[in-house]
């Protein structure tokens, strides 16, 4: 099938266009026929019709868990999907180093940290440490990139201070804990602090990442770029060079 042909698609169970979907959820109701009806009602409201409530399990006196199957009437219009396409060329470590040598004539400085109370360093380490991720070496491996990894639970003021001292070209921040939107809150705080501390337009490139970020929210959060789950060091390096050296690279 050519893309255009399937601009409009529907979920697929076992035949084209059947629209089949699986659902599960809990309702704060004791388990009885009425509760099953309520579950069907929710499924209907989600566009599933007819809704087969195939499983209902009481969890204590006040809650019931449901599994529902059925077709949804919604159409998916793939042409309406907005995604952040990679706007930069992927570079090998070698090419990246060369580009920096040419474009910057000095090592590119990166300061990384896990801010706020977040102590999930595996993600940022995957990007920064030589060890790397998914078979790609981390930024420390790049001869032309100087990496300062501040580790976990770094306070924003410390981060800003360090970035200044190191004359950071880019600041890389990781946020993994998302409960109560901690990641959004911390990112905004961080961005504000940098804009505060640096004269307009002179602040380092701000990059955040984490498995639960929406890559399209960068502007909204006041940072330059967001990387989501499965990011590889190579992508980050390539982006940095593109963003910092642009044409020069």
């Amino acid at each position: 099938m050519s893309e255009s042909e399937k601009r409009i698609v529907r979920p697929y169970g076992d035949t084209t266009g059947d629209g089949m979907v699986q659902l599960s959820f809990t309702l704060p109701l004791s388990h009885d026929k009425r509760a099953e009806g309520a579950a069907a009602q929710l499924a209907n409201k989600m566009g599933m019709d007819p809704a087969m409530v195939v499983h209902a399990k009481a969890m204590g006196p006040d809650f019931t868990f449901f599994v529902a199957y059925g077709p949804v009437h919604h159409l998916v219009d793939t042409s309406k999907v907005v995604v952040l396409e990679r706007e930069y060329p992927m570079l090998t470590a070698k090419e990246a180093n060369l580009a920096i040598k040419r474009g910057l004539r000095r090592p590119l400085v990166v300061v990384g940290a896990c801010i706020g109370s977040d102590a999930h360093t595996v993600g940022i380490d995957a990007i920064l440490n030589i060890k790397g991720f998914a078979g790609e070496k981390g930024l420390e491996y790049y001869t032309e990139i100087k990496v300062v990894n501040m580790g976990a639970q770094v306070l924003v003021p410390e981060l800003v201070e360090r970035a200044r001292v190191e004359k950071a070209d880019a600041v890389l921040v990781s946020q993994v804990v998302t409960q109560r939107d901690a990641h959004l809150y911390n990112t905004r705080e961080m961005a504000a602090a940098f804009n505060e501390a640096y004269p307009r337009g002179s602040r380092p490139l701000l990059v955040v990442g984490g498995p639960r970020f929406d890559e399209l929210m960068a502007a909204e959060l006041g940072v330059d770029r967001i990387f989501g789950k499965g990011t590889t060091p190579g992508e980050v390096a390539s982006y940095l060079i593109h963003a910092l050296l642009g044409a020069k690279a």
Partner: protein
Amino acid sequence: MTVQRTTPSRPATTRPRSKLELDQRVVRHARALARKAGAPVVKLAKTHTTVSVERAVLRLAGLAGADPDGIPWVNRLVDAVAADCGLQHGVALPVWDALLRDAGDDLLALAQKSAAGAVSFRIPEGKDAARAAKTATAAVNIGLKQIDRNRAQRDKLVRRLGDPPKPWIYLIVATGDIYEDIPQAQAAAREGADVIAVIRSTGQSLLDYVPEGATREGYAGTYATQENFRLMRAALDEVSVELGRYVRLTNYASGLCMPEIAALAGLERLDMMLNDSMYGILFRDINPIRTFVDQRFSRQVHARAGIIINTGEDNYLTTADAIEAAHTVTVSQLLNEFFAKEAGLEDWQLGLGHAFEINPAVPDSFRLELAHAMLARELFPDAPLKWMPPTKHMTGDIFGGYLLDGFFNLAGALTGQGILLVGMMTEAVVTPWLSDRDLALQNVRYVFNAAGRLHEDFLPRHDGFIVQRGHQVLGEAIELLQAIVDDGLLDAIGDGTFGLMKRPADRGKGLDGVVEQAKGYVNPATDLLEGTQR
């Protein structure tokens, strides 16, 4: 540091040293009893024929197609012969006698003519009979040679493309439309299926004819027709080349047309067939004698075609309790083995069935499953064994179901099953979705990759729970076999010994299609298959 990391493996299905410490004398005794129990039924099968057996003879001789109402010519012709002179001598003599009397220049012409009422059949005598028999044999032999070529072709493809390791991953397609089945089957093969089974439309097994042509309107399955067989086998040959492994095709024989479907399977190079000596009796209320006659002929054809049969013991456990009835599975496996061997099948062709159907709420259910599966494995060390997933106790709780399927896979790995039917988390909900199959295969892969060789470490404790349970079931099976030998198998079936179904020998569907052979009965196919002539 270095771990002995070796490439993922599926468990060896080669004869393991007895983990259940079975006494081979007891095992031999069990087999002897099965032979005793089965012998009278074989005698019955040798002295009777059925409309389907006779139709199969004509199919082997090349008669295909159907009349304008869709009634196959083989049915029309056999019915005509039956009307004129009965079937007690078989169709071969009267049909080829008629041909020799220029009633038509080939079978099709003859069938059409007779349909128009322009032919009357007789039982030839003396020379005429001899000539009729001779030409009939030559005609049937053409079909058998075709079957032989297919078998050789399969062997060549397996050699060239490679044979997947055991257990073979067995997946089902069941859209009802052969043209939807084909892409799904190819997708399933790409996802990792080694065997594709096309489930038949509900009800076909009770049709006393085999539908014709490519079909698109089955319920919960697709009709088994020669053309559908051909289309699907061709599609799988295509992916087999693409994937570099020979993907096998399975369909269903058991039913009212066992002999014919067996013939068609051989003619279209199917690789496995569901073929149980008693399934039709128990689960489709088909007359016992009809079934026993049909299954024998069909298995002789499978033997010749190099087809692996799958038996249906798993079905018992969907109606009876898997613990209480565990020994009935063993008994049925022993009977199926006896009938199969008698019909000429070899060990490697015996996909004896059993299933993981114990109520998961029963304490020690997994240990019991292991005991049962191990017993089957050790009773039939050289048979591939068909390991069926949980179905009866699957519910709308797809998460619990996915877990249960994982433990089914583990039991399969720990007991070296040869043909693994992949369990679906939606078993109780819908016929499998594309994603259900994909998730199911990931389940299989995790278990076999992570624990596929755990059986090497796993030695059930001497005289422990598992060993004891294995011996207990074998003991009960022997008792039951003894009882069957005493009452006779037909009565046992009549009393609901298997799957709790009572099926008296003088009732059931298709009884009117059973005929006792007269002296001078001729069946060139049987003769050729039994090698009394080539």
